[in-house]
């Protein structure tokens, strides 16, 4: 194996190899021999490890900022509380300290078939999804394409709910939707081409009255991949919901926004009945696999619970 320590972005883009930022995903794939060939260490690239605040109050987060730094930044906690909660709720303290924002967005699927050297699925040169007909209780409930394992990026889901954009060097600004595509291409976890580098994350100006909650339905108290996760952002004014954004993860091969649930909440009083009715809509459009039928209930209940946290009368 050769290790190239990149000194600048242009050099990096022109070098053949897999990028290593925090290394928490890549090193696991090296161990299981899913990743081979040269590695380009980008930890010395300048200008990517800061959170910058703009005059309008919005934040620009460098791709090399660690997940821990975002979770524990008091200004991020105040301006983008849902993002801070999602960052602080994923993985373990050790992973959050090493893992970067860019790496978290661009990590590869955690599907055990993809990560097993004996299987060649769509994502590593084959032409089938072994999870579709195999053991798949963690699989999707929105079946959007040939790959049926959920996208792993909690922060992709969070940034989708925050309508963030990302800078890709040499390409320009892209929405989170564009970063992940529509889920129909099973060969990729994101739409970046080899050699392209995500450099910054741009957030919109914060909404002063925003309340946000993040909930992760998991099989232990912490430090586990979610069964379903949900981030809700609400603005409640004069007993009416005037703004709603809902992101969900663990349910599709891309992060999703539940715009139908958002619409159902708008202009409603944030009471028990509103929350319950809106949460039921999370199941609309689901087409689960035989082993993931129960996850539809998890989806509805996770959205319901997350909404209840923010709803003063529920």
């Amino acid at each position, binding site marked *: 194996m050769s290790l190239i320590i990149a000194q600048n972005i242009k050099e990096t883009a022109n070098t053949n190899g897999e990028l290593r930022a925090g290394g928490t995903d890549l090193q*696991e794939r090296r*161990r299981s021999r899913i990743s081979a060939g040269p590695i380009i260490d980008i930890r010395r690239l300048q200008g990517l490890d800061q959170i910058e605040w703009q005059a309008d109050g919005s934040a620009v987060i460098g791709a090399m900022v660690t997940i821990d730094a975002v979770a524990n930044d008091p200004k991020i906690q105040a301006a983008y509380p849902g993002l801070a909660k999602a960052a602080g709720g994923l993985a373990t303290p*050790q992973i959050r300290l090493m893992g970067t924002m860019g790496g978290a967005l661009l990590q590869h699927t955690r599907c055990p078939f993809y990560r097993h050297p004996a299987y060649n699925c769509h994502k590593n040169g084959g032409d089938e999804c072994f999870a579709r007909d195999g053991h798949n209780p963690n699989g999707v409930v929105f079946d959007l394409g040939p790959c049926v394992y959920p996208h792993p990026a909690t922060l992709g889901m969070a940034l989708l709910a925050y309508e963030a954009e990302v800078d890709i060097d040499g390409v320009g600004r892209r929405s989170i939707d564009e970063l992940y595509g529509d889920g129909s291409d099973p060969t990729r976890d994101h739409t970046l081409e080899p050699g392209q580098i995500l450099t910054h994350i741009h957030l919109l100006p914060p909404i002063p009255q925003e309340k946000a909650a993040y909930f992760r339905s998991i099989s232990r108290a912490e430090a586990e991949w979610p069964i379903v996760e949900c981030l809700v952002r609400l603005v409640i004014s004069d007993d009416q919901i005037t703004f709603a954004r809902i992101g969900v993860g663990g349910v599709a091969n891309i992060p999703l926004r539940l715009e139908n649930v958002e619409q159902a909440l708008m202009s409603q009083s944030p009471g028990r009945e509103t929350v319950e009715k809106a949460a039921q809509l999370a199941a609309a459009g689901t087409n689960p696999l035989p082993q993931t039928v129960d996850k539809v209930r998890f989806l509805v209940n996770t959205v319901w619970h997350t909404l209840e946290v923010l709803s003063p009368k529920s």
Partner: protein
Amino acid sequence: MAVHNITFTLNGEAEAAVVPSHMTLLQMLREEIVMTGTKNGCAAGECGACTVLLNGEPVNSCLVLAVECDGQTLVTVEGLAHDRQLDPLQQALIEIGGVQCGFCTPGVLISARALLDRNPHPTKADVQAALVGNLCRCTGYVRIIDGVLAAAERA
């Protein structure tokens, strides 16, 4: 195979090593330096048995390349005791029964040391949050958490 000459501080002492590009920090500690207190559990960043302090922060040494440690400061479980005196955390875990098979203990001690260095008076919730990346299959965690809280009280 590319190799790299690296220097670093390990448990307060200057160290040097020649490491191949692919070698992890965990492999370097256990196989090159033969300092085997740090344990190899999952080698995938999930169990925390290999936790060490890298520049004061707890990291999974199975996920760090040895070459990344050039010029850095490392502390392993062997570096916790000083002058033949156990770290208060070690003493408390022994007395309270926070050690059974002992395989997770080095990682637990390092994560707990990072917590107490940052927050000398943690709550039970603080301790639980700091240790979520360290799996223990023996103790049920209760006595580990009690031990960390006791060590904090004694300090």
